[in-house]
């Protein structure tokens, strides 16, 4: 029981220790402002990480999410500002495009048995390329709806703002938890990651589940793109480069096994928050440079990968 939850417990411990260190140095970390900002600043990362968790749980990978976020932003900017399309209609359109895009990748992965990373690599090129076809400029979005939506926020005691986009992230996580742990689809995702052949023998609909997983990932990437466009109020082709790596790192640091089958959605939330914590600390510290974020995340990634390797070796030996 303990071993089963060990990775996520360690994730939680890392977060708590990290938070306490921050708190000891900068007492303002206790304020709801900092917490509100932590949630808001990492909202898009959290949303896309939910989808990535499903992908990784199934034993796959999705390298296209950063590009899909950028495409979404550019599409929204062009649709709303150039063609005057109602923002809400544009949201629906772009979510539909995202879902189709992911379903296409899932279909290729399943039908041709091509490694997921190379299919989603093609997807990454394609989505980024489509951005440039739409525009190479950074287009600001000035639609009134954007102003209204970004204004929505709960003011927490202590003055922190729980913004709309932070709420969207938290709702996405809640939905992700339900989907992963309380539906047949969720069980099928874990089954695929556990052992694809066994899953197939046991009657799991492998093709349908694979397509569903990548569809979900791209759909959530598109949702993250919408949230990111609220955050930046612009669409830019070069936005969100490298987000796929941050996302994968958040999922792994959240205790999900990169080889699939083991992990939790809630762990991913903590993983995202750890990344946010590191960034916030470095901002507060002032003298530390931003590249320490990457090194720290890389070190955590290494630690978790080796830990998981050790755990799986140990469980093999104990049989």
């Amino acid at each position, binding site marked *: 029981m303990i071993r089963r939850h060990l990775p996520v417990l360690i994730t939680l411990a890392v977060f708590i220790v990290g938070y306490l260190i921050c708190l000891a140095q900068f007492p303002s970390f206790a304020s709801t402002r900092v917490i509100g900002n932590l949630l808001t600043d990492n909202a898009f990362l959290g949303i896309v990480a939910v989808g990535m968790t499903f992908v990784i749980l199934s034993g796959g*990978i999705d390298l296209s999410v950063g590009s899909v976020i950028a495409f979404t932003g550019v599409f929204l900017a062009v649709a709303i500002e150039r063609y005057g399309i109602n923002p809400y209609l544009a949201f629906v359109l772009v979510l539909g495009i995202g879902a189709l895009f992911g379903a296409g990748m899932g279909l*290729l992965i399943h039908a*041709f*048995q*091509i*490694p997921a*990373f*190379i*299919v989603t*690599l*093609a*997807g*990454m*090129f*394609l989505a*980024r*390329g*489509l*951005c*440039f*076809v739409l525009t*190479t400029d950074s287009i600001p979005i000035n639609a009134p709806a954007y102003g209204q939506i970004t204004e929505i926020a709960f003011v927490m005691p202590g003055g922190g703002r729980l913004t709309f986009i932070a709420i969207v992230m938290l709702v996405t996580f809640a939905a992700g938890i339900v989907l992963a742990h309380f539906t047949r689809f969720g069980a099928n995702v874990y089954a695929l990651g556990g052992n694809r052949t066994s899953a197939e023998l046991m009657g799991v609909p492998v093709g349908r589940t694979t397509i569903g997983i990548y569809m979900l990932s791209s759909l959530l990437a598109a949702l993250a793109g919408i949230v990111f466009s609220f955050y930046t109020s612009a669409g830019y*082709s070069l936005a969100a*480069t490298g987000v796929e*790596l941050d996302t*994968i*790192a958040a999922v792994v640091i959240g205790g999900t096994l*990169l*080889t699939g089958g083991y992990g939790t959605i809630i762990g991913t939330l903590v993983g995202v928050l750890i990344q946010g914590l590191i960034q916030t600390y470095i901002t507060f510290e002032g003298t530390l*440079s*931003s*590249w*320490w*974020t*990457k*090194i*720290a*995340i*890389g*070190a955590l*990634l*290494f630690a978790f*990968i*080796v830990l998981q*390797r050790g755990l799986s070796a140990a469980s093999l030996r104990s049989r």
Partner: protein
Amino acid sequence: MSSVIQASAPRTLPKGLPQVAALLIVFLVNWLVFRDFFALRLQDGRLFGSLIDVLNRGAPVAILALGMTLVIATRGIDLSVGAVMAIAGATAAALTAEGYPLPVALAAAAGVGLACGLWNGILVAVLEIQPFVATLILMVAGRGFAQLITEGQIITFVSDGFAAIGSGSFLMLPMAVMIALVMLLITHLVVRYTALGLFIEAIGANVRSSAYAGVGTKAVTIAVYMWCSLCAAIAGLIVTADIRGADANNAGLWLELDAILAVVVGGTSLFGGRFSLVLAVIGALIIQAMNTGILLSGYPPEYNLIVKAIVVLAVLLAQSPVLTAVRAVLRRKA
């Protein structure tokens, strides 16, 4: 080169024909949109022209593809080459800016590259972490280290010797092209005139049988990752020398993907086994020729991403049923 061209199974087409044909077709299309594509002129003892440009700009990816071919042939993958390029470039630039002589800077960059490869190799061969996962660590952290070295700045340097690696010329060809040719030659000699090539192909095709035959599978795997990182370090030096500065954020960004693409286009299977260095280099040139073609035809350079995506999909779809059929034949006869 006879050993490179030998076919792994009886086929009707000679190996490499599709790649060479694809390169010629891309050249032809480029010539159609830009009639001076094949024009060469000699200036200051160096050849200029679109064709030379393709070679020159394709050189870094071609060098990366050499190492990546070997890694993929062992059934691995190295996602960290772009980050290693940035680290090596930053190392050399920082040392040069501090006034160290060129050989020291170059040796340090190569040493850093080898160390990165050793790290990847140990994770893959000794800790037995999946290559994709193992090299992801350096892919994430590597740029951080590069920025640590450059302290977040773009380090510029004044060193004609160093700059010559990127923009100089030798025997009428750009230096980068010469370096790529030399690396191709060295890599070819190392794998085909020692037993490494045999060991690499054996490991990629069946690691267990190879180990049972007494092949030192771990040592070979580590060596291959080290060679891959060394290639990345050299590519990083060229890129750094070309702009006379080390940009830790953008040097080699996403080039690992181009390198993998070049290897796949060059016909080496992602499932390991038989490999071809020459065809991987041709793969790199195909990619670069398409880039150049898009530029020449007046489209924004970013369009080549879409073209690349289409090429990846086309190659995968073309290879996938063929590969399956070949494997089915092998299995049936076995």
